[in-house]
């Protein structure tokens, strides 16, 4: 690359950043905790995450690189319920910003968010030689009046031509949806089953029964959970009201092992032979986790 090209590139980055602007501030302790726990969940499930900012919503999106870049996590946060101040100018007419960042850095820079003396959490897009997401945590201190903890996370700005990759996934209509039983119990059982075999078969039926099954050369093991609340079922055409899908047990275990899930109500949806879809749907945010059926 010649010097000339370097200058052009620099100007290009500069102009992108000059047009773009984002700053947000969270002050409510509950919101800070919740934001942190969402980031933690994502950090357990993927390596890098795409942040999509629009004037009303903040999206956290993760792709599954090993599976045709299908979306594996799709979470949407309502800007108004999380942020006290939220200010952004995006690119193009849609007024949006897309950038990707390493999720583990994001999670570790927010780790002070679990402390009780955190006063404010600020995020802004900055230009420090390269585009960065700057996280500013203001902590209350007994020694001095104010403690400030600043992290810069390098981000990669995603150009508008690549945005369609991160479009909202079309969720195939579920055959059945139920409310998951106690996550702690399911997690323990799935972790045990992980040692028996690599593939977990999840079956749901119209009577509110969930069966988790695993097998290896020497054994088959099924655990039955009964009395789950069925919140949606495709109108039964025939007698068969049982739907199942087989997924990678390691991936589902990763999801169940996100500590912060303990208090959340998790919905579990199955598309026969295609997809296991877990979702957390709260007023302020939604989080979807998609696990495709694995082949033999």
């Amino acid at each position, binding site marked *: 690359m010649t010097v000339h090209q370097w200058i052009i590139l620099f100007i290009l980055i500069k102009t992108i950043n000059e047009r773009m602007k984002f700053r947000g501030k969270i002050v409510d302790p509950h919101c800070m905790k919740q934001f942190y726990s969402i980031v933690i969940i994502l950090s357990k499930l993927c390596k890098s995450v795409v942040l999509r900012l629009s004037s009303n919503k903040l999206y956290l999106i993760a792709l599954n690189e090993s599976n045709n870049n299908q979306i594996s996590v799709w979470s949407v946060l309502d800007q108004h319920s999380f942020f006290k101040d939220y200010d952004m100018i995006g690119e193009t007419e849609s007024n949006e910003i897309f950038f990707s960042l390493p999720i583990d850095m994001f999670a570790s820079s927010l780790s002070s968010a679990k402390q009780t003396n955190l006063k404010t959490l600020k995020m802004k897009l900055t230009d420090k030689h390269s585009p960065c997401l700057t996280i500013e945590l203001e902590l209350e201190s007994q020694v001095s009046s104010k403690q400030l903890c600043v992290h810069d996370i390098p981000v990669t700005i995603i150009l508008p031509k690549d945005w369609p990759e991160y479009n909202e996934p079309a969720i195939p209509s579920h055959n059945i949806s139920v409310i998951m*039983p106690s996550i*702690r*119990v399911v997690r*323990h*059982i799935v972790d*045990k*089953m992980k*040692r*028996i075999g690599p593939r977990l078969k999840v079956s749901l039926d119209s009577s509110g029964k969930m069966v988790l099954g695993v097998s*290896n*050369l*020497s*054994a*088959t*093991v*099924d*655990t*039955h*959970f*009964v*009395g789950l609340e069925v919140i949606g079922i495709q109108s039964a055409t025939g007698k068969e009201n049982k739907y199942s899908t087989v997924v990678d047990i390691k991936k589902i275990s990763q999801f169940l092992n996100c500590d912060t899930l303990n208090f959340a109500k998790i919905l579990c949806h199955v598309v026969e032979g295609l997809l296991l879809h877990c979702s957390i749907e709260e007023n302020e945010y939604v989080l979807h986790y998609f696990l495709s059926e694995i082949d033999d």
Partner: protein
Amino acid sequence: MESDKNGSFDEKYLLVAKADNVKHISSLLRAVNFKDVGVCFATEHGLKIVVEDSKCVQANTFIGCEIFQEYQLSDDTVAFRVDLNTLIECLTIFDGCSTNPSFTTALKLTYKEYGSPVKLLLEEGGIITDCSLRTMEVFDILDFSIPAESTISKIILRSSDFKDILSDIDSTSDYVEFMFSEEPQFFKISTSGIAGKCSVEIPSKSEIMEQFVCNATITVKYKYKQIKPFLKCMNISQKTLIRTNEEGLLCCQFMVQVDSHTCYLEYFCTPIVDED
């Protein structure tokens, strides 16, 4: 016809065993799980699980029929081989699920006929797990035993203290030497590793020694890695009985208290034949 079927329901099975709490059973099985496959013998006295390694080491665990609330056998002896790892994994599937210590996992074990799988039905807190474990044919197993008349030495030790001694011995040593001395009376454990030679001597009058019988001084060597699995047994047992015969065959019996019953674990280990 229908009622007839129901009436003879349990008779159709070779073995039916029910237990309210599988915790004891799984911990006894874990203690002998130094190999993947175990042979299960069911007799009128209870279950015996045998695990062997290279015809040198044999571990037995006896789970008396009194551990089971229901125990039915329709043959004199029923035997099958199973994958022990998976069996333990199944029995402990509810471990840690409940925060309430009064919740226990109940088990119903059924074995229909030779060649059929062993079925386990486990229940805890309304959640049911059913397991089907493939069984394999039983091959000849070693017949180790030390009858009382051929016992050369016999000592009884407190398991917790013996465990501390055994876990401290030099792991770089290839062998462990046991010496039962007649006069003066003591039991000595010696090793030889990278760091040098090391020995622990327990006099017969030691407070960890409950009984000491030695008819002739005997020194025998065993492979370290064959002695190491003993440690697992000592964690759950109260007393350890060590016996040897003239050939140096070692027999360790571990007494395990389960509620008001006593179960036994037993290890046999053949000695190393000295080159000189």
